């Protein structure tokens, strides 16, 4: 009987796994991305524009000899553009087997969340950007919006990005 309880408890804890999220700010809202997809966080550096690139591409940067495409996250999220300032960061992430950078207003912290602490986002979105959000979580009376980086771009857009 006791063994059964232990097995159930272990199974429950496995289901309720703790995930780490890197949080960043965009337009006064806090977003989180899976820490496993984050490679590094860079201070803003000059981004070289690429002629003929899609509108959601800000340009490219040279990261230790590798060319990394930087995405305009605000544009992608349907937010108005903002001036670059001292807290602006480029978060280097890996998604869909590609390494890209996303420009954010600032990077905040790494938070730990149990799977059970993640709620579904309001399912009323019809716009394309609605699918970026995989859930929301309430932390200290602040809402954390969890972003699914794999869905940040469509399959075609990922392919297009790969060919830049």
């Amino acid at each position: 009987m006791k063994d059964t309880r232990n097995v159930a408890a272990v199974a429950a804890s496995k289901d309720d796994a703790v995930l780490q999220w890197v949080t960043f700010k965009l337009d006064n809202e806090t977003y989180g991305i899976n820490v496993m997809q984050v490679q590094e966080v860079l201070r803003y550096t000059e981004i070289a524009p690429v002629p003929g690139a899609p509108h959601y591409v800000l340009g490219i940067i040279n990261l230790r000899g590798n060319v990394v495409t930087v995405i305009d996250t605000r544009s992608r999220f349907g937010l108005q553009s903002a001036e670059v300032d001292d807290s602006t960061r480029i978060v280097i992430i890996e998604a869909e087997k590609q390494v890209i950078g996303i420009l954010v207003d600032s990077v905040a912290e790494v938070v730990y969340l149990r799977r059970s602490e993640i709620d579904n986002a309001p399912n009323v979105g019809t716009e394309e950007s609605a699918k970026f959000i995989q859930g929301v979580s309430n932390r200290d009376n602040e809402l954390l919006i969890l972003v699914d980086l794999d869905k940040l771009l469509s399959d075609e857009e990922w392919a297009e990005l790969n060919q830049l």
Partner: protein
Amino acid sequence: MSKSVDETVFDFFELLLHEDDSAFSASPINSKSSATSVFDVSIKTEAQQLNDAILAEHERSKVDARASTVPEAQLARAKSIVTVSTKENTEPLVNKQALERLLAPVLKTQEPVIAKPTVLNEQPLSLPKPVEAIAVTNVVKPADVEPQQDEIISTAPETQVGFAPPSVTKDLQEVLDDEFQVLFFKVAGLTLAVPLVSLGGIVKVERINHIIGRPSWFLGVQTHREEQLNLVDTCAWVMPEKYTDKLAQSVNYQYLVLLEGSNWGLACESLLNAVKIHKSQVNWRSKAGKRPWLAGVVKEQMCGILHVQALVQMLDAGLGCQDSIG
């Protein structure tokens, strides 16, 4: 601003008026004006019929007044028009047409639901013949057509009296006692009412988190007691056609009216009061229309009363105010 407020209130009221038009023919609603007298004439006493007929002819006489200012040939033609229309038994239709014309700019997104002449055939109006003579001869003063239409229309809202057993709001009415309390709240000059039994609570607007990719009427999410409330930009949802950038900037949401059995909250600018009203004080919707979220109109306050259950269904489905459920 005050003009837009009036327009808004009027829009709401005429909306119900318009959508209930066809229902009046089947429901025993009493009416005082010529605009609706034709529909319920069969159930009225003779005295009421006479009264209505006189009122109708009074209105018609104002229209005919214009004819008196023109040469006799035109007057004769006007008389013949009046005679023809009388023969066709369409005097009330004149008012309905005028009503339709006036409301056309407001109701451009709706299909006009005007009572058909066939209804008249089913319930023939028996106007006293002497009144017809008054209509032609009782020429008093000249008047323009447009103001005349305004006068006709201005009487229309006053006809919203009586109590019709509704069909589409039956579920709501079954929940409500004969006397029930409603809370009135205000958004951009528009007053709305919500039955207290359908009220989930009142919460002050605090930190609203904006979620990307949501409809424009989705204000965002606010945390309340460790749960997320989905906030509706009520003004944007209820009257999207009037929700300009200027109006959006002027709206100052203060409270959230939570909808029972959901995590939806309607943002509002102010809470007015909660009063007890009788079911008969509401002109309930009796016909399914484009706005299932609207249960009817509270006659005294002249404001819409919400059908919360339908509203929640619509919001859950991400529908706008003029979309139909399912």
